[in-house]
C-alpha cells in the first residue's frame, strides 16, 4: 500500500507537519497509557501504590503481585489465583478454534465450488446469525446443555463456541475461495476427482493465508469471551475472563490493585502476544470481519 501514499499534505507546510506529528504522538501516548499503568502498577507494592500516583514508576520492583495473581488471589470462594482458569481457557479455546475453523473451511468450499440449489439461501441464513445478540439464545442453550449432559464442562463451552463461531469461519473461507479462479477445480472435476480429493489436494494447499486469519480471529474472540463463560460455567470450570472479573470483584480485606493489574495482564497476554507476532494477519481478519459486521 505504500505506493498509494498521498501527496495531500504537500500544501500543509512545515508547521502543519509538526502539528500532525504532535497529535499522532499525543494519541499514541494516550493509547499506551493504560498498558503502562497496568504494567507499572502490577510491579508495585501496595504501599508504593498508595504513596505514589498512577503514572509514577515503581519505587522497588516486585513480582509478588504476579505470583499472587497466578496462584494465590481469591476469585470468589477459591483462592488459587488464575492458574486453573488459565489452563481451562486453553483447554476449551484450542479445540473450539480448530473445530470451527475446519468446519468453516469445508463450508466455504461447498458454498463456492459445489454450490447447489438453496446453498446461497443457507449462507444468508447463516450470515444473519452473526448479527443476533447472544442474549437471545442464552436461556435455551442453558437448558439444552443440561439435556445433553455437558452443562458446566469444557465440552459444553467448546460446543457453544463452535456453534456460534461457524457463521464467522464459514464467511472467512467462503470469501477467500470465491476470489479463487475456479478453472483448476473444474478441470479436476472433469478428470473425475471427487469432493474430498479436490479439497485435500487442491484447496487445502492454497488455504494457509485464510486459515491463519481465521485461527487468529477465532482465538481472539473465544479467548476474550465473557458472556458464554459466565453463563455456562461456574467455579473451577470458568474461563480466565470470568475468573479475572471475579478476582477484581472479590472484596475480602484490602483491595490489591497490583494483583488486579497483574491478573488483567495475564488474561490479556495470549491475545496480545498473538497480536504482536501476527498483527498483520489480525488486521486482515478484522477488515474481513468488517464486511460482515
Amino acid at each position, binding site marked *: 500500500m505504500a505506493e498509494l501514499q498521498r501527496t495531500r499534505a504537500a500544501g500543509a507546510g512545515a508547521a502543519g*507537519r509538526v502539528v500532525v506529528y504532535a497529535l499522532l504522538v499525543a494519541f499514541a501516548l494516550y493509547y499506551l497509557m*493504560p498498558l503502562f499503568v497496568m504494567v507499572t502498577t502490577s510491579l508495585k507494592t501496595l504501599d508504593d501504590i498508595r504513596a505514589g500516583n498512577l503514572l509514577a514508576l515503581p519505587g522497588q520492583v516486585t513480582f509478588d503481585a504476579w505470583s499472587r495473581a497466578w496462584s494465590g488471589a481469591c476469585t470468589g470462594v477459591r483462592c488459587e489465583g488464575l492458574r486453573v482458569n488459565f489452563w481451562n481457557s486453553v483447554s476449551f479455546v484450542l479445540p473450539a478454534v480448530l473445530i470451527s475453523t475446519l468446519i468453516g473451511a469445508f463450508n466455504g468450499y461447498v458454498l463456492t465450488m459445489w454450490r447447489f440449489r438453496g446453498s446461497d439461501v443457507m449462507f444468508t441464513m447463516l450470515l444473519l446469525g452473526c448479527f443476533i445478540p447472544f*442474549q437471545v439464545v442464552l436461556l435455551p442453550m442453558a437448558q439444552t446443555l443440561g439435556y445433553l449432559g455437558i452443562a458446566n464442562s469444557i465440552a459444553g463451552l467448546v460446543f457453544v463456541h463452535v456453534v456460534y463461531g461457524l457463521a464467522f469461519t464459514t464467511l472467512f473461507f467462503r470469501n477467500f475461495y470465491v476470489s479463487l479462479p475456479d478453472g483448476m477445480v473444474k478441470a479436476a472435476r472433469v478428470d473425475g476427482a471427487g469432493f474430498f480429493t479436490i479439497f485435500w489436494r487442491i484447496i487445502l494447499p492454497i488455504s494457509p493465508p485464510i486459515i491463519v486469519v481465521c485461527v487468529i480471529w477465532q482465538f481472539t474472540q473465544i479467548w476474550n469471551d465473557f458472556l458464554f463463560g459466565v453463563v455456562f460455567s461456574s467455579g473451577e470450570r470458568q474461563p480466565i475472563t470470568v475468573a479475572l472479573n471475579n478476582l477484581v470483584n472479590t472484596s475480602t480485606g484490602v483491595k490489591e490493585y497490583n494483583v488486579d493489574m497483574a491478573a488483567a495482564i495475564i488474561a490479556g497476554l495470549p491475545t496480545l502476544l498473538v497480536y504482536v507476532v501476527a498483527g498483520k494477519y489480525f488486521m486482515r481478519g478484522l477488515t474481513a470481519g468488517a464486511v460482515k459486521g
Partner: protein
Amino acid sequence: MSSATSAGAASVPAHSWRQAVENALPRIVLGPTLLCALVFIYGFIAWTAWLSFTESRLLPRYELAGLVQYITLFENDRWWIAVRNLAIFGSLFMGVCLALGLLLAILLDQRIRAEGFLRAIYLYPMALSFIVTGTAWRWILNPGLGAQQLVRQMGFENFTFDWIVTPGMSIYAVVIAGAWQSTGFVMALFLAGLRGVDDAVIKSAQVDGAGPVRIYTSIIIPSLRPVFFSALIILAHIAIKSFDLVMALTGGGPGYSSDVPATFMYTFAFNRNQIGLGAASAMMMMLTIVAVLVPMIYAETGRHRRG
C-alpha cells in the same frame, strides 16, 4: 477418482450408488452447519420468544400467559434506565469512535514516518478482552488513587473526576473505556478506505486550486460513505451487545445506574431467577438490533445494487 478414494470404494459394487453419495456430499457436509443454524439460532430465538410469553421464573414453564412479562418489563424503572444508558452509551461511543477514528486515519494518511508502528499502537486494545480493558480503566478512573488523585497531586487540589462512582455519570466512564478499545479498529477501516480514494480526482481538484481542507470535506470524506456504513454497523452491534465492559468497569453500578439491557437481561435471567422477564428483555434487544441494523444494511446493499 484418486487412488485414495478408489481404494476405499473398490469394495462397493454399484457404481451408481457411489455416484449418488458423491453427488450428495456437498449437502451432507453443509448439513450439520445448517442444522445448527436452524436449531441453535432460529429455533432458540423462537424458544426465547415463547418463554417471554410465559410466567417462567426459576424454571421454564411453557403455558402461554400473554404479554405479562413485557408489561412487567415496561413498568420496570431499571429497564428504562438500562435503555436510556444504552442510548447515551451507544450514541456517544459511536460518535467518539467515528470522529476520532477518522481523525487518526487522516493524520496517518499524511505520509507519516513509522506509520505501521503508530497504527499498531492505536490498534492493540482491540486484541484485549473487554474484561481486561474494564479492569484497567476501573483502576485508572477510581477517584481515590487514580486519575483524579494524579491531577490533584499536580496542584489542582479541587479537581474532581469521579464519574465511575457517581450515579448518572458512570455510563460516561464506560464510553471512555469503550472508545479507547474500539477507536483503533475504526481508524483501520477509514485508513483502508482513504487508501482506496482515486488519486486522479484529488490531483485534478488540486489543479483547480482547492485547498487541503476543502479537498477533504468535499471530495475525500464523502467518498468514504461505505466505510462510515460498515463502521456504524459494527459499532452499533458492539454497543447493543455491550455486556463485558459494563460488568468489568462498573458492574452496572453504582446501584444499577449504569445498567444496560445486556446486564439487565443477565441479572434477571440468571441471578434473580426471572426467566420470563429475562427472555422478554432479550427479545427487546433482538428487536432493537433488527430495527437498527436492517434499515442500515438495506440502505447499504441497495446502494451497491444501484451502483
